[in-house]
């Protein structure tokens, strides 16, 4: 029995899987050639990576690598992966290996960009975490809603509203009240989405689009009619300062990247863990997923489909509102028109890329945050690659993922369909 299950995946690979495996293998080989031609040839000088942030307790020396040498090694590694992928396949580890290959390419790219110069790797990865915060909250909001089969396109609007009230209420009553107001307004918008989608059975995507237009309109309108004139009293909020976690924050390299941030980042870690645990290890999670996969069956078993949908969508909205408050209370200190600038949509992309799983969503958000911080740093290093293409990367990756070229993303089975109780 055990022997059969161990060998079964390789024997019973479907034609689609074999095709996919071939495609990925060819992609590896192409990437190897790309690295060889673009990064390795004609590149001179050493890349200096700074591994320690200023003020660290432990000093670690800089990492100095030959840019060309790094590229040759990376190209060989990718070609090796491609060979195995084409012949044997990686089975269950395919996606992990793919992630590893991407990381290798990213690192090689950095080496190439920083050849002859010095780049603060710590600073860059720290920025990655920071940039991924609103994306992660948006993605978590999406996970909460879509696990009960309600599509939430309105994440962007919820982020924006959370940011607005975070600034307004935060300026009047202090940052904590600002966060609370952000959470509440997110919940309120989600409640509107839930009523439209669940009670009135409005097309969920239309309902979400409406929330985005409404949030953009009302925040811009109120900004120009109220905030601009009173910017000193109504649009200046004390932001949360970074707080270094004792012990964890002192770990060399890792510490400054992950454990020297403000409250929102730690809130993000906790929330990812809590939602992942709750969704997959608790009764609530099992029932939520049942509602999302097969509402009729769930209803037959006595689960109140409507209550679960309302509850989870509102919770999801609150998460987005909290994430929105990050823009003002956690980062900028003041509200600016349309300051979420599409992060909600990247959050949606991160949710899909992360396969509707909280941890996956965090991982995807970190990848997208990396593209964001890379774009910021590359402007300083003056590489020939335009930053706009890096900003495109999350969207292109998402299209590739939903098209099933690299790994099929499977949404909850009833996603987007209203439930009619018989």
């Amino acid at each position, binding site marked *: 029995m055990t022997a059969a299950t161990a060998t079964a995946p390789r024997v019973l690979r479907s034609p689609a899987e074999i095709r996919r495996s071939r495609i990925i293998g060819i992609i590896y080989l192409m990437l190897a050639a790309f690295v060889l031609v673009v990064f390795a040839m004609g590149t001179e000088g050493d890349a200096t990576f700074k591994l320690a942030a200023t003020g660290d307790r432990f000093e670690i020396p800089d990492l100095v690598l030959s840019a060309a040498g790094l590229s040759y090694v990376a190209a060989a590694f990718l070609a090796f992966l491609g060979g195995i992928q084409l012949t044997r396949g990686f089975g269950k580890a395919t996606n992990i290996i793919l992630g590893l290959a991407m990381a290798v390419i990213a690192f090689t790219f950095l080496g190439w960009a920083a050849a002859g110069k010095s780049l603060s790797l710590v600073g860059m990865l720290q920025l990655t975490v920071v940039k991924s915060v609103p994306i992660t909250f948006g993605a978590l909001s999406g996970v909460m809603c879509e696990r009960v089969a309600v599509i939430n396109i309105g994440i962007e609007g919820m982020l924006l509203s959370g940011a607005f009230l975070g600034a307004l209420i935060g300026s009047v009553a202090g940052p904590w009240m600002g966060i609370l107001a952000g959470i509440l307004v997110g919940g309120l918008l989600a409640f509107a989405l839930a009523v439209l989608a669940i009670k009135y*059975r409005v097309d969920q995507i*239309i309902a979400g689009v409406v929330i985005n237009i409404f949030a953009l*309109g009302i925040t811009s309108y109120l900004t120009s009619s109220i905030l601009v004139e009173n910017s000193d009293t109504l649009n200046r909020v004390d932001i949360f300062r970074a707080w270094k976690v004792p012990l964890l924050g002192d770990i060399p390299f890792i510490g400054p990247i992950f454990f020297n941030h403000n409250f929102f980042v730690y809130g993000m870690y906790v929330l990812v863990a809590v939602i992942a645990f709750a969704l997959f290890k608790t009764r609530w999670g099992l029932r939520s997923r049942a509602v999302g996969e097969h509402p009729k069956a769930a209803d037959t078993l006595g689960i109140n489909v409507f209550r679960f949908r309302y509850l989870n969508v509102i919770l999801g909205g609150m998460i987005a509102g909290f994430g929105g408050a990050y823009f003002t209370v956690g980062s900028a200190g003041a509200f600016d028109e349309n300051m979420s600038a599409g992060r909600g949509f990247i959050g949606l992309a991160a949710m899909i890329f992360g396969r509707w799983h909280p941890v996956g969503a965090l991982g995807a958000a970190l990848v997208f945050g990396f593209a964001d911080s890379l774009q910021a740093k590359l402007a300083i290093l003056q590489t020939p690659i335009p930053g706009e293409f890096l900003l495109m990367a999350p969207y292109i990756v998402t299209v590739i993922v939903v098209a099933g070229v690299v790994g099929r993303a499977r949404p909850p089975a009833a996603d987007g369909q209203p439930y009619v109780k018989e």
Partner: protein
Amino acid sequence: MNDENTGPEAEDRVTGEEVDTEPASNGPDRRIWARITGAEGDWRSQVLVPVLAVFTALVIGAVIIAVSDVDLLGLWGDDAGEAFRQTLARIGDAYGGLFKGAFGSVRGVSETFTWATPLILAGLSVAIGFRAGLFNIGAEGQMLMGGMLALVIGFQLNVTIWLHLPLAILGGFIGGAIWGGIPGWLRARTGAHEVITTIMFNWIAIRFVDYALKTTFIQREGRPDRISKDVLESARLPKLLSWIDPQYRLNAGIIVALLAAWGVYWLLFKSTVGFEFRAVGANPDGARYAGMNVTRAYILVMAVAGGLGGLAGSTQILGVLGNATPGFSANLGFDAIALALLGRSHPFGVVLAGILFGALRAGGQQMQVASDVGIDLILVIQALIVVFIAAPELIRAIFRVRAVKAAEQITRGWAT
């Protein structure tokens, strides 16, 4: 949740003045209506609900105007009568300015139709998708890509206007058609949901335009910021009202938009291909069993939709702006979603809705001047209009209108 026998419907039957709930009395009315317009459903859901939706949205907009003035809110405690008077005056100023700016002068009408041009085209783009059961959120990106191709043809070629202008417009159509066709192809071949892909394509287009405007080929010489070269005079859409005042921006783009509306009407309701589109939209499985090529229909619908979006972008470039800057699509592609819903996804409805939204855009600027009520209020009004259109039960509950069709499900969710 049985809508037929509960709620306002049941109450109405008791208190209502005229009883015409039987479908039979609705029959001939509906059939004639369908023949005139090519649309299903009776006049209540086709005309009454949109009108009431706009009205209700304007009323709520007035409430927002009333409560969004901090000084005025403070006055209510001291002198309620004066506060009431001032609030009314403020609302009157705002909506008076809105109307005057849109229709009060030749200039206003010119502005209304100038804005209506890209709105109608982008609205048609979304509407044709809806008819085929596809949700094209990508009009914004299609406007950008179509507009960019029209721009390049506009400044690069140097031929006579009789050739140059049609080529530039055609280029706009093709640019948009490619940008819309790829999501259509992905949907047909891989099942990738068009809502996700078109949203992503919007952002890719936005970043691409940011990049393209910095390249030496497109960026204007001697400028450090993102602005393109000017379109040559031979590729500009001629201004229609320049004989009154050269300032009036209304251009031949409106003719393109109206022709496109007629073309979409013909395509959807008079041609075989259009019948296939609608059949696929109504029931893809049924259409497949009837021997229609659903894959081809999806690609074609999205290509045509994208082409219309591209036309919207190119009329902006060739008619109004003359050059490209980041975000030259001005969120019109997103307004188009609201507009297509308001116009009931019917080409003629889209034209009317486009004129209304154009009026809101044009009047909004005058409103801002006349009453310092910000122009962003029109976004709120538009969002509210869509809410009431999308959830007609709300209208039914407020106004006791009977026989309103229940909300329709356009998309089928990601799960395929």
